[in-house]
């Protein structure tokens, strides 16, 4: 998959397993179960079968004819991870980890979530497999993402608002670790992205590699040749690594990761770890990578219009692919993202998530520079229509605001207290 050092869990100088002693036995158990699963073709078959019957795999590859004409360069293709059950690539990873949990005999799953997609996906998997489920979510995100909290709770999960630190994704990860060190006997921590201690970066990438495996076969079937470039947004890095996995060995295929440029790289209000010079190498949350941190090693606040990209660290596998030049990293600003989303909706009738729209920004910038007989591929990692509250806010839609105000007035006038749990 990717080059690794002799030392397990390292990708170049990045990765590792910086875990507290109390979890050493738990990680030994996880490593063994993961190793067994990887060497057992029946595991992968069961995983693929389940993804095809439960989550709409293989997801289609869509030719974006109107966008292609609009930019007048490369033929634009879109990998439709938004069509997964629960609306994002997150489903791949949680179903994979759920199957692993069954092998390990664990009965309770915990997870962190930022925007809420990974929380909803995990709660869905827990409902299907009959696991108890607790989701840690920063208090700020709980407020921003009530619809996802609503679904997690309906799915039977306990959602714990995290009130420490910056009250966002990284703090939710810390809190999930605190739960895990207490309850590891029956509990698995289903980390949502290709970060954290070994084997998570490699294991999550493995589960997400379905995306690249399918996309490569699909575009070869469609065009007979490989794409010239592949674009994906990068938060933790799992959707990017998923699609890049299919093309890493194809030296002529350019791989482009797009991070959150927020208000602009010069403002400091962004989450660009690899596309900016603001991040330095550090060790936190169990692994070594580029972090947005100060000179003392304290993590800084990050910003993005897309909660799923708003994170201080990045997959160690991507840090290595950045260092060795295999993947190029760019940043897309909040306003560029809204423009790209708007254009995609109008031209193609597709609604990428705000996160995924970052990948579209750079693909649109580059498209005119390719010739018409070349193709580029964008990973639409999630759908935006289910994040209507966030997207409507991002568009600052006056009619939506009015609707919410009227709805609020209606609730207030009714005077009752609707079922709150």
């Amino acid at each position: 998959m990717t080059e690794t050092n002799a030392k397990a869990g390292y990708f170049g100088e990045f990765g590792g397993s910086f875990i507290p002693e109390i979890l050493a036995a738990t990680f030994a158990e996880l490593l063994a179960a993961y190793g067994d699963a990887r060497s057992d073709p029946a595991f992968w078959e069961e995983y693929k079968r389940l993804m095809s019957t439960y989550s709409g795999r293989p997801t289609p590859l869509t030719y974006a004819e109107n966008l292609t004409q609009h930019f007048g360069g490369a033929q634009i293709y879109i990998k439709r991870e938004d069509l997964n059950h629960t609306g994002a690539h997150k489903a791949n990873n949680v179903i994979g980890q759920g199957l692993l949990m069954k092998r390990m005999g664990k009965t309770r799953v915990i997870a962190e979530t930022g925007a809420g997609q990974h929380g909803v996906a995990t709660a869905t998997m827990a409902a299907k497999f009959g696991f108890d489920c607790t989701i840690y979510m920063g208090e700020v995100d709980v407020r921003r993402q009530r619809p996802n909290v609503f679904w997690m709770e309906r799915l039977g999960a306990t959602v714990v608002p995290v009130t420490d630190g910056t009250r966002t994704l990284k703090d939710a990860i810390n809190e999930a670790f605190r739960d895990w060190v207490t309850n590891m006997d029956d509990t698995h921590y289903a980390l949502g992205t290709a970060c954290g201690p070994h084997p998570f970066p490699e294991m999550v990438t493995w589960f997400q590699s379905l995306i690249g495996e399918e996309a490569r076969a699909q575009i070869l079937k469609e065009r007979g040749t490989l794409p010239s470039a592949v674009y994906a947004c990068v938060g933790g890095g799992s959707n990017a690594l998923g699609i890049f996995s299919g093309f890493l060995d194809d030296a002529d295929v350019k791989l482009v990761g797009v991070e959150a440029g927020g208000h602009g790289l010069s403002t400091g209000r962004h989450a660009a770890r690899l596309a900016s010079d603001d991040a330095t190498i550090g060790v936190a949350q169990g692994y070594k990578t580029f972090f947005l941190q100060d000179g003392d090693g304290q993590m800084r606040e990050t910003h993005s219009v897309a909660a799923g990209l708003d994170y201080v660290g990045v997959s160690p596998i991507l840090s290595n692919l950045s260092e060795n030049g295999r993947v190029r990293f760019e940043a897309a600003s909040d306003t560029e993202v809204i423009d790209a989303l708007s254009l995609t909706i109008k031209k193609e009738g597709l609604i990428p998530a705000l996160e995924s729209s970052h990948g579209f920004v750079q693909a649109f910038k580059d498209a005119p520079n390719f010739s018409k007989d070349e193709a580029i591929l964008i990973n639409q990692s999630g759908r935006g229509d289910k994040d209507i509250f966030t997207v409507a806010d991002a568009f600052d839609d006056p009619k939506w605001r009015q609707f919410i105000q009227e709805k609020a007035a209606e609730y207030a006038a009714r005077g009752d207290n609707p079922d709150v749990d």
Partner: protein
Amino acid sequence: MSTSMTLEDSIRAKKQDRDILLMTHIVLGHPSFEEGMRIVEAMVDAGVEVMELQIPFSEPTADGPVILRANQQSLENGATVERCLQFAEECARRFDISFLLMTYYNILFKYGLEAFAQRMADAGLYGAIVPDLPPEEAGEYLEAMQSRNLAPIFIYTPTTDDTRMQLIADVAEGLVYCVARRGVTGSDTHFDEELDLYLARCRAATDLPLALGFGVKDRADVDHLVGRVDLAVIGTQTIRLIEESGIEAVKPFIEGLRDPS
């Protein structure tokens, strides 16, 4: 100034006069550096033999809510690594007990492992506890510490099997910190037969002095540990006490944990 005596020697010497030693913990810069120095004074006055000085970190994953908040408040008040090291240096200069640093690995990594260890040695500190640095990742750190006679302190937990206890004993120096139970700092621990069996395993695995931490909160807990470990660690309990009753409460509380010497 550098310490002539190692942490292990110092503990063994003090253990001649006491059936159990006390190790306490503060988060540097919490509630402030000025109050922190008064807390250290009170603890030294009360007879504490070893102190852990925690340099705050923004992601303290191994700590429970009380110490977590102390980390955060200290950083919000503007604590820097440099200010923390100056504080530790002053402690070591003023008081004749063994001071250790406790912090997460990123703080050392960003400072530079060699530079950090040199700074510790110059300051007269005895060793460090880094809860997110397992022996497998500790090569460079071990070299930096050992070449300066500083103790790299490692951790045993109830989930650590005998083989792994041996692996840890091979690299640990000064003392081994035995975590009493699963979970983070600041919750209750049952001082029962299961704990005793675990401590017997720890004792069998290493000749180093043993310290027992997580959930030690009163005289009965400390009494239970006499003969089983060499040091009892009081962490969260003193932070709680200070929050509830002020710094004045520290000295009588700690004195009440053991018979007068």
